[in-house]
C-alpha cells in the first residue's frame, strides 16, 4: 500500500472536479495546512492551475509545468496521511516504509558540505538545480527513522520550484512527528534541520543564479522577492534585501540530545 501510494502520485493524478468550496485553500496567499475535512485522503482535486495561486504567480505559471501535482498538494497529502495514523507505532512503520523508498545515495556525495548539522543522527543532503530551474534533492542517513523523514521531504520537494521549497514551513509538517508529545521538537528536529538545510541551500543556489542575471533584470528579482513574500505570507523568509537568517546553526542548542 505504501509504495503504491507513492507511485500513484508520480504519474499525473486523476482530475476530479469537486464543488467550488474546496477551492478555498488554494486561493489564500497563506497556504493553510489545515484541510477542510471534505478533502479525500488519496486523491486531490486538481483545479485549473491559473486559479490556484494569487495573481503574481501567473507570471511563473506561464511556463509549461513539469508536473501537475504541486508541492502544496503533496504536502497536504502527506500531512493527511500521517494525521490518519493515530497510533504512534503506525507512524513509525510508515516512516520506515518510506525509508525503503529512498533513492540510493552516492558515496561520493557523502562529504562534510553535504552534512546536515544539528542532528544526532548523520544526515547527508545532496542538492542540485536542474536545467528547468527546479530543485533536485537526494538524501541519506544512518538512522532508519531519519531516512523516513528525508524520504517524505524529498517526495514533497524533489523537482519543485525554488519558491515552493522556500514556502514549506516547519509547522506544516508537524503532523509527521513521531512522538505523540511535543510539537516541533525531539525526533522531528531531524527533518526540521533537513528542511532548513534544503531551504538555505536552495536560496544559495537561487542567489547564484540571480547574480548571473542581475545586470539586466532588476524587475525579475523584485518580482521574485514578491513571490517569496507571497508564498511565505507571514514573512518567514525575508525578502532578499534584508539580512539572511543563518540556518547552519540549529534552532536548538547543538548540545541538545535529540532523543525523547
Amino acid at each position, binding site marked *: 500500500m505504501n509504495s503504491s501510494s507513492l507511485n500513484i502520485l508520480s504519474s499525473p493524478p486523476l482530475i476530479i472536479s469537486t464543488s467550488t468550496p474546496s477551492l478555498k485553500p488554494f486561493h489564500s496567499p497563506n497556504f493553510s495546512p489545515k484541510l477542510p475535512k471534505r478533502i479525500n485522503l488519496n486523491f486531490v482535486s486538481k483545479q485549473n492551475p491559473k486559479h490556484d495561486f494569487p495573481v503574481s504567480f501567473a507570471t511563473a505559471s506561464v511556463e509549461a509545468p513539469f508536473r501537475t501535482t504541486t508541492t502544496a498538494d503533496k504536502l497536504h497529502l502527506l500531512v493527511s496521511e500521517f494525521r490518519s495514523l493515530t497510533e*504512534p*507505532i503506525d507512524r*513509525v*512503520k510508515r516512516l*520506515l*516504509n518510506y*525509508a*525503503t523508498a529512498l533513492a540510493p545515495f552516492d558515496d561520493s556525495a557523502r562529504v562534510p558540505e553535504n552534512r546536515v548539522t544539528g542532528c*544526532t*543522527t*548523520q544526515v547527508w543532503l545532496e542538492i542540485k538545480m536542474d536545467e528547468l530551474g527546479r530543485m533536485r534533492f537526494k538524501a541519506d542517513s*544512518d*538512522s*532508519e*527513522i*531519519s531516512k523516513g523523514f528525508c524520504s517524505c521531504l524529498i517526495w514533497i520537494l524533489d523537482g519543485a520550484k525554488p519558491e515552493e521549497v522556500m514556502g514549506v514551513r516547519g509547522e506544516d509538517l508537524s503532523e509527521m512527528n*513521531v*512522538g*505523540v*508529545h511535543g510539537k516541533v521538537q*525531539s*525526533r522531528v528536529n531531524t527533518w526540521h534541520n533537513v528542511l532548513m538545510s534544503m531551504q538555505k541551500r536552495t536560496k544559495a543556489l537561487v542567489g547564484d543564479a540571480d547574480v548571473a542575471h542581475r545586470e539586466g533584470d532588476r524587475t525579475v528579482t523584485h518580482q521574485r522577492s514578491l513571490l517569496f513574500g507571497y508564498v511565505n505570507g507571514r514573512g518567514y523568509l525575508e525578502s532578499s534585501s534584508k539580512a539572511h537568517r543563518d540556518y547552519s546553526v540549529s534552532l536548538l542548542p547543538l*548540545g541538545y*540530545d*535529540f*532523543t*525523547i
Partner: protein
Amino acid sequence: MEGVAMKLPSFKSLAPTAISVASTFSRRRSFSFVRRSSSLSATITADSESVSLGQRARKDFRILHQEVNGSKLVYLDSAATSQKPASVLEALQNYYEFYNSNVHRGIHYLSAKATDEFELARKKVARFINANDSREIVFTRNATEAINLVAYSWGLSNLKPGDEVILTVAEHHSCIVPWQIVSQKTGAVLKFVTLNEDEVPDIDMLRGMISEKTKLVAVHHVSNVLASSLPIEEIVVWAHDVGAKVLVDACQSVPHMVVDVQKLNADFLVASSHKMCGPTGIGFLYGKSDLLLAMPPFLGGGEMISDVFLDHSTYAEPPSRFEAGTPAIGEAIALGAACDYLSEIGMPKIHEYEVELANYLYEKLSSVPDVRIYGPRPSESVRRAALCSFNVEGLHPTDLATFLDQQHGVAIRSGHHCAQPLHRYLGVNASARASLYFYNTKEDVDSFIVALADTVSFFNSFK
C-alpha cells in the same frame, strides 16, 4: 555518654554480639551487621531482606510512579540526572516558604537562619566526602563550572608554555574544553591517554606520560560511558612525585560510592548535585586549603570581596573568594538534605546494591544478540558502574531510544553523552546508554531488556 562509649579497647576481644549493644551508643558504623532499620522513611522492619533497596527507596520518589505514552515509566537515565526524594524537595520548599533570605551579611533573623542552613549544607557536603574543613568546599553552579574555575583560576596562573596537562580520551567535554581554552591562552600542551584492549584508559600509558613537565592530571573517577573506574590513589601518588596536581571529576562516583578525599588525596575534586539526588543549579569544588588560598578569583562581584575601592579591590578568603554574587541558597540547602538522605541509607549499602544491579544489567544486556557494550567486562577485579553504553548492530541508537520511549515508556539516553572524542576513538557516532541508580530494581532491568528485544525485532522486520 558518647565520649565514654567511643573508646572501647577492652571490648575488642569480646564476641561481636556483645559489642553491638555498646555500638548503638557509640554510633560507630564499622559493625555492618547492625541493621540500620531507621534508614528509610518507610516503616519496613529490619529483617525484610527480601525487599531490595530499590523497591524500598522507590517510595520516596513520586516521579517514578507515572505512566509515559501508555506504559509505566522505567527511568534508566540517572547518569544524566538523578531523581530527587521527597525530603530534598521538602527542604527546598521549606527554605522558600519559611526562611528565604539573602545570606552572609544580614543581621535579621531570617537572614541569620538562611546563613546558618547554607553553611550547614556546606559542612554536610564536606562531611560527605570527608574533607578536613568545610572551607575546602566551594559551591558552584555545577561540576562544569567547578572545572572551569580551576582552569581559569589555577590554570591561568600556574601553567606556562610547554607545561603538560594529562587527560584521557574518555573525559567528559567539561573536562576537555576548559583545558583546551586554557592551553591556548597559556601555551600549555594537552596529552591524552588512550584506551587499552579492555576498553579502559591505559594506566601504564598514563604512568609513562607523567614527567617533570606535567603540571596537572585531570581525570574522571568513574566513566559515564565505559563504566570503568580509575585508580585515583595511585595516580595521585605518581603525579605528586613529579610535583603535578590532580583534579578528579567525581560526577559519576560521589553519588554511587564512598568517596573519601583524604584517602584519594586529590588536589581538586568536582561533583554535581543533580546526579546525587540534589537539585540542579548547584555543584561543588573540593580543593585543598593551601591550593585555594593561593588561587586568584574566578568571577568578580559581591561576596567574594573584602574591600572595594574605585581603583582596586581586595578579596575574601576561600571559599567566599570563589563564590561571587548571591549563591543558589535553597539549592545548596537541598543538596545538604540530599547528602543526609544518602548517608542515612549508607553509601556502602548503595554501592553494594548497585554492583549487584550493574552485574545483572551487563549480564542481561549481553544476552541480547547483536548488542555491543562498551567498556570493560565485569570480573572479580574489575567493577563496572551501574550503566551500560551500547549499540545494536544495524540500528541507530536514536531510533532505538525513540522506540523504547514511544512503545514501552523506557527512558534511556542516546547520543555522544558529552564524550565525542571517546566515541570517535571507538569508531561510532553515537551510542545508547542505560544507567541505573539505587531506586532502580531488577524488574526495571527486565522491562528494559524485554522492550529492547521488541525494538530490535521491530526494526529487523523492515530490513
